[in-house]
């Protein structure tokens, strides 16, 4: 590819800085179209340095990405707006990298990273939430293609997406975990219908996706037939890593707005609220430190199981803190900013008003794994406690209770 010819051969911080400057010289951001710049960055191996050469990376340690990002930011270079394409970056890309064919990798990763193709995830179904492996969307082989029928739900960005990662049942006679196959689905297929799904906040961040005789070429299958559950584990694992990897300043999360209100509005203060606020402030600060410690472990190449716990802590704290905030506001807590149905492109859990934050945070303990399931995961995988007796593992999917 066009990655700069290696000089020293050692991919250290200095070498990455040198290559970044070379890119900036060749394509000055001020004079370069945003997408062209991003694609040039990808081709220089500076998109995600830990990816292989030719696929936007250099096979360098992941911890060196910060060096590149800092150089680019200082030079005022555009970024790929990662929040807008989080599902592609955080879930689809690592799965394609691990399980994709060479053709799939070179076709999909570049536009995915640059953000000119948005991705969404077609996993959850009305009848398969926590028990995702029970999913019933069917994919039936017809020659070189698969014909897909079913319904998916809680799909963010479906109305913007060009591609989706999809899991569907290819063999209902096998036990549920074994009859699933993983696909890349073209969202422009005429059989794909996207409908907004309005939620308790009044807006629709997510969609329902109805799949009717959608044709997916076999070349867009990811991994082996029947191996979709294992492939999906890679997707979901990366979701959790990306949640745990963020660095947050003190009062950077949900505790920020309520602390601000507390400082600015002495008229609202009561002793009871004060005690509760301080308790939550301490918990938020400690959760932040745990996240920071996890980040330091990842940088040091010693990832721990703490990541499994971060989402649990974050969900509960968001809910309790935003609930306290509504109460703190007293009469103003009786109001809500706006119930108009909208389809926001980005979601900010700490955005809008306290009422919105309170309602939106209710989803934090459901989306991306319910808190109840995550507690089981911690208990079984971290603490090594036995699982509950199960009756669903060795039964053909078609014979399961529904």
């Amino acid at each position, binding site marked *: 590819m066009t990655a700069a010819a290696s000089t020293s051969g050692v991919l250290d911080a200095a070498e990455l800085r040198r290559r970044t400057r070379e890119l900036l010289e060749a394509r000055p951001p001020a004079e370069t179209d945003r997408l062209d710049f991003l694609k040039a960055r990808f081709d220089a191996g500076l998109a995600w340095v830990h990816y292989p050469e030719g696929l936007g990376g250099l096979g360098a340690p992941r911890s060196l990405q910060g060096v590149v990002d800092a150089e680019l930011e200082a030079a005022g270079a555009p970024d790929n707006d990662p929040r807008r394409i989080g599902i592609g970056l955080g879930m689809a890309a690592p799965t394609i990298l691990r399980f994709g064919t060479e053709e799939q990798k070179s076709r999909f990763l570049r536009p995915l990273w640059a953000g000119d193709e948005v991705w969404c995830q077609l996993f959850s179904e009305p009848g398969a939430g926590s028990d995702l492996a029970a999913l019933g969307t069917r994919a039936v082989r017809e020659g070189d293609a698969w014909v897909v029928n079913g319904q998916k739900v809680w799909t963010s960005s479906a109305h913007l997406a060009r591609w989706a990662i999809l899991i569907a049942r290819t063999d209902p006679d096998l036990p549920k975990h074994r009859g699933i196959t993983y696909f890349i689905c073209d969202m422009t297929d005429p059989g794909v219908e996207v409908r907004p799904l309005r939620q308790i906040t009044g807006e629709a961040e997510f969609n329902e996706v109805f799949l009717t005789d959608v044709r997916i070429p076999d070349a867009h299958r990811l991994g082996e037939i029947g191996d979709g559950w294992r492939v999906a584990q890679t997707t979901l694992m990366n979701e959790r890593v990306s949640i745990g990897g963020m660095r947050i300043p003190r009062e950077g999360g949900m505790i920020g707005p309520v602390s601000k209100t507390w400082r600015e509005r*002495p008229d609202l203060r009561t002793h009871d609220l004060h005690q509760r606020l*301080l308790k939550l402030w301490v918990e938020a600060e400690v959760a932040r*430190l*745990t996240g*920071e410690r996890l980040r330091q472990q990842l940088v040091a190449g010693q990832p721990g199981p*703490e990541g499994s716990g971060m989402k649990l802590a974050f969900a509960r704290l968001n809910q309790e803190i935003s609930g306290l905030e509504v109460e703190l506001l007293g009469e103003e807590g009786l109001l809500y900013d706006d119930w108009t149905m909208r389809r926001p492109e980005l979601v900010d859990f700490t955005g809008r008003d306290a009422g919105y934050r309170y309602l939106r945070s209710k989803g934090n303990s459901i989306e991306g794994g319910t808190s109840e399931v995550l507690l089981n995961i911690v*208990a079984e995988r971290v603490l090594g406690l036995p*699982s509950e007796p199960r009756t669903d593992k060795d039964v053909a999917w078609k014979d399961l209770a529904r």
Partner: protein
Amino acid sequence: MTTRTQPDLLYSEEEEALRAAVRDLLTDHCDAPGVIARTESDQLHDPELWKVLGDGMGLAGLLVPESLGGQGATHREAAVVLEELGRAVAPVPYLTSAVVATEALLACETDEAAELLSALASGRTIGALAVTLAAGPGAPFTSVRHEEGALHGELTGIADAAAADVLLVPAEDGGLYAVDADADGVTVTPQVSLDLTRPVATVTLVGAPARRLTPDAAPAVRRALRAGAGLLASEQFGLAEWCLTETVRHLKERKQFNRPVGGFQAIKHRLAQLWLEVVNTRAAARNAADALATASTDADVAVAVAQAYAAPVAVHAAEEAVQLHGGIGMTWEHPAHLYLKRAKADSIAYGTAGGHREALAELVDLRAP
């Protein structure tokens, strides 16, 4: 830059090696039946263990500069030692002598203080700050009367005073004084303590001869109690982790209803929640230890956060250990009660969680109505 923007929350290789050495020692010298038996003996502290730990391994002098005969290490290393001591509920005056009394002396600039620091660093002399264990950093503390070079008065709730060779006593003239525990006019009377592994005592001074360490006791006491509160979080972490680990181990083995009890979801969720709390406590405790070690401007906040968080977690962990062990957890024979008593006493030591939250209200500007 004097203060790093991000604290180092991990353990270094040297710290892990130190942990392994202390753990080996405690495995050999501090088993649970021994600790339980000692709580019913005349000598609540374990002098042999202290000798190996303080003198033999040189751990009593971690916070003392090498020029004064110490190890010149930091609070980070002392915190690792305390994690292990908490895990074993070891009956040794490490926190009180090697941390709190030592920190008070480090704040004094007299030759007398330097001499005492060397003595404490060697582990052959044990010191105790004669301020109630319940006092948090910045809280008011009781002082005794100073008259013609001698002290008069009574002080209660002094942790590990019964083991101490020298008491550091604040007086009403504002000074901090050293008093030899075996001097005439000094009586140390053990109080029947909730936690028999860190017992408290009454110190009665009737014309006790005293040597002045500093004319300004308040900052020295404050510094000592802040270090005590901050590093206590590491002890609480070690204690809580033992409770969790031991309870999980028990519940994998214990069978009722033809299943391991640890397989019931109601139990699993409780243990997973406790694990989250323990993991958080480690981060908070490391943050406090690092802030103290680097003399960070954030140390007051880091200590208050750590203590406000760790104290209730240690109590929760010990309470869960008793409950989830069922009947055996309620017996004198099983060590769970040692952890419960230590955790509950620790939740008062160096200020309660509520006291530290009140301190935070000022420190982070979230003021009371």
